[in-house]
């Protein structure tokens, strides 16, 4: 199953037979005080740096979140979409919990975007899926409902099934355009949650064969040496069936771990991309040395 995202002149395909899709998480002001202040003044210069760093790090899609309290998030989203699309031809993942922000962002976007995200709550499904359909976008589905974020992998799969049923049945969104988030929770708060995520991924793959993505940085929240944990967990999740992640594309350690998984799981035939990356790095080191 292929989820195809695009910008004006580039497409990216997410699939179980494709190289893992690295979605850069960095264009997000949550927890970044300075960035928030800049955004409230309408200053988007930080976005340019975040784009450049993530493109250099190997991002294939960029997540754009403008969630700044006490600011006009819809206007910021429109400005950010236009700015980022002028800087890079990577497809974008438009990230907000506010419907109007998603609508405005999708209207400004050129290409086929990924919407982050819809939950299995009836109200959210009814508000967001029509937008996804109207703009011909793809959407990330989070398997939580009005009551809870389920712990049990089988319940997560049920709620994912509900999202898929409503999106395909009621709104005519193709299943290829639904990317399910199996939910990666912080292991620092409970070390049993990693296994539950892996189980959910395997069940989702078996039952629906859909593409999947999760917020990889969540996993290591509150723990030391977060990059090593991320670099270990991602290949496990990829082996179970994860096909993309919203992750720190600036961390060579984490990005290399998924590139290595690509080789080891035969998503990088003959290791060509792996070898090419190695040569590029050698050439860079040589250049730096001379």
């Amino acid at each position: 199953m292929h989820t195809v995202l695009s910008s004006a002149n580039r497409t990216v395909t997410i699939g179980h037979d494709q190289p893992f899709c690295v979605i850069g998480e960095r264009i997000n002001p949550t927890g970044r005080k300075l960035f928030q202040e800049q955004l409230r003044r309408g200053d988007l210069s930080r976005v340019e740096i975040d784009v450049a760093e993530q493109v250099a790090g190997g991002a294939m899609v960029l997540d754009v979140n403008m969630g700044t309290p006490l600011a006009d998030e819809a206007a910021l989203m429109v400005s950010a979409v236009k700015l980022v699309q002028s800087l890079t031809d990577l497809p974008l993942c438009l990230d907000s919990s506010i419907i109007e922000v998603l609508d405005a962002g999708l209207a400004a976007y050129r290409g086929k975007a990924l919407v982050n995200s819809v939950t299995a709550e009836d109200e959210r499904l009814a508000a967001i899926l029509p937008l996804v359909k109207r703009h011909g976008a793809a959407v990330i589905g989070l398997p939580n409902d009005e009551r809870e974020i389920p712990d049990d992998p089988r319940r997560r799969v049920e709620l994912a099934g509900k999202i898929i049923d409503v999106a395909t049945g009621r709104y005519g969104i193709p299943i290829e355009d639904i990317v399910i988030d199996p939910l990666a929770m912080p292991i620092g708060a409970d070390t049993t949650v990693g296994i539950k995520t892996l189980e959910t991924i395997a069940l989702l793959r078996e039952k629906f064969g859909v593409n999947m993505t999760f917020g990889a940085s969540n996993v290591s929240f509150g723990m030391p040496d977060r990059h090593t944990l991320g670099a270990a967990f991602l290949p496990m999740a990829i082996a179970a069936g994860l096909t993309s992640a919203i992750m720190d594309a600036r961390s060579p350690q984490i990005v290399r771990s998924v590139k290595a998984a690509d080789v080891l799981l035969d998503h990088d035939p003959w290791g060509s991309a792996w070898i090419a990356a190695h040569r590029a790095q050698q050439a860079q080191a040589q250049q730096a040395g001379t």
Partner: protein
Amino acid sequence: MTPQELLKQLYDDTLVGNGPAVLELTHTGLAMNLGPEALLYEALIPALEEVGARFERGDFFVPEMLIAGKAMAGALEVLRPLLAETGAESIGTVVMGTVKGDVHDIGKNLVNIMFEGAGFQVIDLGVQVAPEKFVDAVREHSPDIIGFSAFLTTTMPMFKANINALAKAGLRDQVIVMVGGAPVTQEYADVVGADGYAADASAAVVRAKELLQRRRRAALPA
């Protein structure tokens, strides 16, 4: 073991979150006639304060904070009825909940554990808590502090709705309102009229104690 040695050991075991040892030392301490207040104020609370300080410095991590908080909570279950008998002033009562429309609870649960670890009594209303439920809980429990948690920019506005509901019920001045959650900032807390905000569970406890002390001092007759 001398009483001093016991208090030291209880402090050390709480710091590293050794729950069974903390429980056993608490019982041993009581059997040695160390009062519940001595155990609480000379070992358990200082240990949790040290945990918080280490967490703030980046020397301790979330799991260590959690197990220390849980070890402390185990001891408090034994001590709380005894403290009530001695008529000791309670450190404080906190009503906590994730706001309506929001089902995220990991952050809130961490904060609860740290509050319990600091000796507060915590009444957790869970997730998806409507304003009227918070109002009812303030009426029923007369807490010193009420905490609202929100994880989404779309649910943060419920802070204001909750505060308005408290005001309408005539309860706003009876309780300290604290807010928190991933997208929440100090500026946002100020704008909605909350009394306090903190960026993490450990800082929340420190802030709560400050706010409570200020209020209690203000309430003293001149």
